[in-house]
């Protein structure tokens, strides 16, 4: 009898919890305001505990990464050495590329990134699970003027955009490495606008749409955001360097492999460009 009662009670509990979960899922999918505020309050409650624990356990995490990723670090070191040598040679060419980019942007009448209001944000959560490899959470939100779709950059260049409506003091950034991430780009020196998409974590970006076969592109060329009319991104944000040139099957377009200029691993601080192409005065 007691077992029967207990089983009945556990079924009721299960049904209640399942209905609660389903309700939360539905409300979240519909961006229900009160739920988002509750989420944010809970997030704020846990965050200080987490930050404190982070400070304590950071050395442990670093030591673990050092041990488990030793081979990776060695090959990364080697890559960096080669990259440094290449950059040395590239330095002289870069000044020329900068002049070309400046004149191109002048011609197009597009805004410079430097003129755009921006705000620095700290990355508060990155990759806590195994299914969130393409996003990070930052400590700036709607109260700071952050809006859905705004570009997020570091010194190296574009690293992503604000994903979804931000909370009051938090926002999620979809990283450029996300295979679903797309951004309009152009190769410095050419006029053709193409579409670049993420290739996965640690993988290069792919420019697979829009770059016609007769556009002159060379390995080592710089790729930047195109900033064409109504683009989510202002012109001239560095995306990366062309490392490989291929062609689609029908040889109508070129397919570029682009090594991203900004590192999206181990981000601490990022800059959100308060850029909204649809807003007046932006």
């Amino acid at each position, binding site marked *: 009898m007691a077992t029967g009662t207990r089983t009945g009670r*556990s079924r009721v509990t299960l049904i209640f919890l399942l209905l609660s979960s*389903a309700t939360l899922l539905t409300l*979240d999918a519909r961006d229900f305001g009160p739920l988002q505020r509750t989420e944010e309050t809970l997030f704020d409650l846990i965050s200080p505990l987490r930050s404190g624990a982070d400070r304590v356990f950071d050395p442990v995490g670093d030591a673990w*990464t050092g041990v488990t990723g030793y081979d990776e670090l060695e090959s990364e070191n080697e890559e960096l050495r080669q990259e440094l040598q290449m950059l040395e040679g590239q330095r002289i060419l870069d000044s020329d590329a900068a002049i070309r980019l400046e004149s191109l942007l002048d011609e197009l009448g597009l805004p410079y990134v430097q003129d755009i209001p921006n705000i620095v944000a700290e990355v508060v*959560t990155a990759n806590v*699970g195994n299914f*969130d490899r393409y996003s990070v959470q930052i400590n700036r939100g709607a109260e700071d003027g952050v809006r859905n779709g705004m570009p997020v950059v570091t010194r190296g260049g574009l690293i992503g955009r604000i994903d979804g409506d931000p909370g009051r003091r938090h926002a999620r950034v979809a990283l450029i490495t996300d295979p679903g991430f797309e951004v309009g780009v152009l190769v410095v020196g050419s006029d053709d606008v193409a579409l670049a998409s993420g290739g996965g974590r640690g993988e290069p970006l792919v420019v697979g749409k829009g770059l016609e076969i007769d556009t002159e592109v060379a390995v080592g060329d710089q790729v930047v955001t195109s900033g064409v009319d109504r683009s989510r991104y202002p012109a001239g944000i560095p995306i990366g360097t062309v490392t490989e040139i291929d062609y689609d099957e029908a040889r109508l377009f070129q397919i570029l492999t682009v090594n991203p200029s900004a590192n999206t691993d181990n981000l601490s601080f990022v800059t959100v460009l308060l850029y909204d192409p649809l807003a007046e005065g932006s």
Partner: protein
Amino acid sequence: MNTLSSYARSALFLVTVLVLHLALFSDLRVLGVAPEVPLAIAITAGLVGGPERGAVAGFAIGLGIDLFLPTLFGLSALIYTVWGYAVGLLQERIFRSAWWINVLVAAVATAGGLLVYAVLGELLGEANLYTDRLYMVMAVAAAYNLVLSLPLLGLWRWSWPRLLGEDR
């Protein structure tokens, strides 16, 4: 009074594990895979406390981790609830088992839980869950939880000291 103390211990345990997962375990990656501690919490709660407690613990830790994930709020809670309940039910009706069977069940249930998470998430419109990498994630996370389940089983017994003699 005992029940209150049991609730307080459970809450303390869950918050501590959540914070530890966010600050420490999520960085301890092997082949890029982090241990699935929240899922292990739901599974081990089911193994120690039975279906009802497994479901409640799964729901609570699922909500906690959902705050920090980009997926829909409530997705982890939904899956961990079902998983905590199912494992508790199996344990009650079938296993009634030795410690090593519990540990094995935790590992297998981890792999199954991740598969369900990926499939259900994709069905609900989340991208990048069911990928080529999923099976490696399942294998490594299962191995991780094989090890982690032992201390977690012990900690649940500490949280619910009255359970073993009276409640069940």
